[in-house]
């Protein structure tokens, strides 16, 4: 393989990896605080893309306004979901909450099929995102450059919030010990709401970037990315934002490279994430950057 084709694949891998990382952060944040696999995260992502789509086509908003609308409404949607489907079960066994999450995901998908129709829709792309640049022999579409940059910006904001603000400190406290945090006067409900809002907002950012890269919407589009990004979060060590980013990149680059280097395995592309997950879990059950926990007797 020439260095040019390799670079081309790297560019593809990095932009896919950034998308995975954005979504994986949402999983990691929610899991860190609630110890809940938010199975509906992929569907929140899907809702975000549809809001952007209808904002542009039905309400004729300019693309940037539609995107901002999508971020705001998706965050609100995530918060509403937490209120309705997760909060009533906060004191229940873990399995009930997980089943509720799966049920919520199922409900959102079916609602989307009824509301938006089952047929795929084409996403209108502003020309800014489709410019093609040439660097030597490597051709890059502008969206492939925008994706990593946007990811980095949001990541920086998030890291700042978590590490340097009072809300962030409260979030860390809640994720460390829920009860103790409550005793110290932290309003746990507000922190959880905030976390869900942030996670859903990141899902919407990821969704908008995703449809700019792969411009097709279907009600079930969130399923596979959702699952894969959860895997990215687990591979990196769930609960750790750094880990989610690392996991996202490993998954994105790995997937592109497996298709590029071993074309005979193309059909197994979707299995790569799961094989990686199982290997990592067996070698390091808490993920690459996760903390090892010991069970107290």
């Amino acid at each position, binding site marked *: 393989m020439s260095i040019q084709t390799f670079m081309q694949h790297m560019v593809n891998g990095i932009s896919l990896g950034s998308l995975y990382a954005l979504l994986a952060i949402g999983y990691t944040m929610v899991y860190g605080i609630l110890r809940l696999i938010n199975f509906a995260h992929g569907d929140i992502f899907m809702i975000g893309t549809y809001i952007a789509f209808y904002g542009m086509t039905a309400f004729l908003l300019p693309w940037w306004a539609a995107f901002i609308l999508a971020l705001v409404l998706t965050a609100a949607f995530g918060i509403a979901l937490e209120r309705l489907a997760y909060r009533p079960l906060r004191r229940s066994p873990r399995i009930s909450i997980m089943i509720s999450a799966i049920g919520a995901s199922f409900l959102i998908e*079916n609602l989307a099929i009824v509301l938006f129709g089952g047929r795929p829709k084409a996403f209108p792309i502003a020309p800014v995102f489709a410019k093609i640049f040439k660097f030597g022999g490597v051709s890059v579409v502008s969206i492939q450059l925008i994706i990593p940059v946007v990811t980095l910006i949001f990541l920086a904001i998030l890291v700042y919030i978590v590490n340097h603000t009072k809300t962030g400190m409260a979030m860390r406290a809640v994720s460390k010990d829920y009860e103790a945090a409550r005793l110290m006067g932290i309003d746990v409900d507000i922190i959880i709401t905030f976390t869900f809002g942030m996670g859903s907002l990141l899902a919407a950012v990821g969704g908008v970037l995703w449809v700019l890269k792969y411009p097709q919407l279907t009600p079930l589009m969130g399923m596979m990315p959702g699952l894969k990004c959860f895997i990215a979060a687990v591979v990196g060590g769930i609960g750790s934002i750094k880990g989610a980013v690392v996991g996202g990149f490993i998954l994105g680059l790995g997937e592109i490279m497996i298709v590029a280097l071993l074309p005979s395995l193309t059909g197994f592309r979707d299995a790569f994430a799961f094989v990686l997950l199982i290997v990592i879990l067996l070698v390091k059950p808490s993920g690459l950057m996760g903390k090892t926990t010991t069970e107290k007797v």
Partner: protein
Amino acid sequence: MKKNKKKNIMTLIALLLFIGFLAIADRIFDSYQMRIINLAGIYVTLGLGLNLINGFTGLFSLGHAGFMAVGAYTSAILTMSPELKEMNFFLKPIMPFLANVEWPFFPALIMAGLMAAIVGALIGAPVLRLNDDYLAIATLGFAEIIRVIFTNTQTLTNGALGLKGLPSFNNSFPYSFVYWSWGTAVVMIIGMVLLIKSSYGRAFKAIRENEIAAEAMGISLFKHKMMAFVIGSFMAGMGGALLGHLVGTIDPLMFRFLMTFNIVLIVVLGGIGSITGTVIGAVVVTVMLEVLRVLDGAMDFGFIQIQGIPGLRMVVFSALLMIVIIFYQRGLMGTNEFRWEWVTSPKKTLTNAWNNRKA
């Protein structure tokens, strides 16, 4: 002692009545209604398998669809006639050693269960060390891997095209299909009751309640978890095989996560850790799904007509299930089982049972 004997006789009578019901139903119901009855029976088998793993042993597994796929394909390939195989595998021929195999249904069904159990053992050995959330996601991953493998092994499974024309219940079986579907279900129910009442069953429950305490009491965690997982996979394999023959065609897309989710719902609705609950859950879910079909078609209330909205059925169904999950977390039965006392002195025992439903 005398009381037990009386109960056994009552159970036997109930069973005979049920067989009688099936025999009559088989004659008077049309094929659509029989299909629902068959489906309910198959879901009983599938639900029991998952309940053994999730409900009784407390291992949250989401890989049921994968084992069903293994069973469905095993039985399909074994029972299809050589000509039928040739017709199906038109892109690439089937592996030569399978081309001329044609087994009767019963051994194929058992083989389907065994293959799924073997796959279950292979998967279980590494992943059963993981705990709840991680186990769920790892088993889900394995189910997806199985699906991807089946999509890509053209010479074994015909890939994404799937298999068509599986021997189905109206022509190829010595007895009507309902005896196969409910026969399997009844055998599984009896097997489950015996298993749960045995010392193994008590060990499973101990692991569910507290793993560390169970281990301290000398229960081998790995052995028992593995046992529950393998038996559950066996039942999933048989259920998958029956489902394949009922529907008549199988393809990898059938065994997506949605399939697992259906089974999880049956178990949750009935009550996690209750055999009776699973049976009720399976019947209720199957019937509900068909009853709600009305919503998809046009409705006529005399004075007002509503055009059908395709897909509304699934929305209502999933909304109902969310309500059950949130407001009736313990399911219909909790961990209670059916007891004859409910019939002989219903007032006291039934209210007791309802209040004692345990999460």
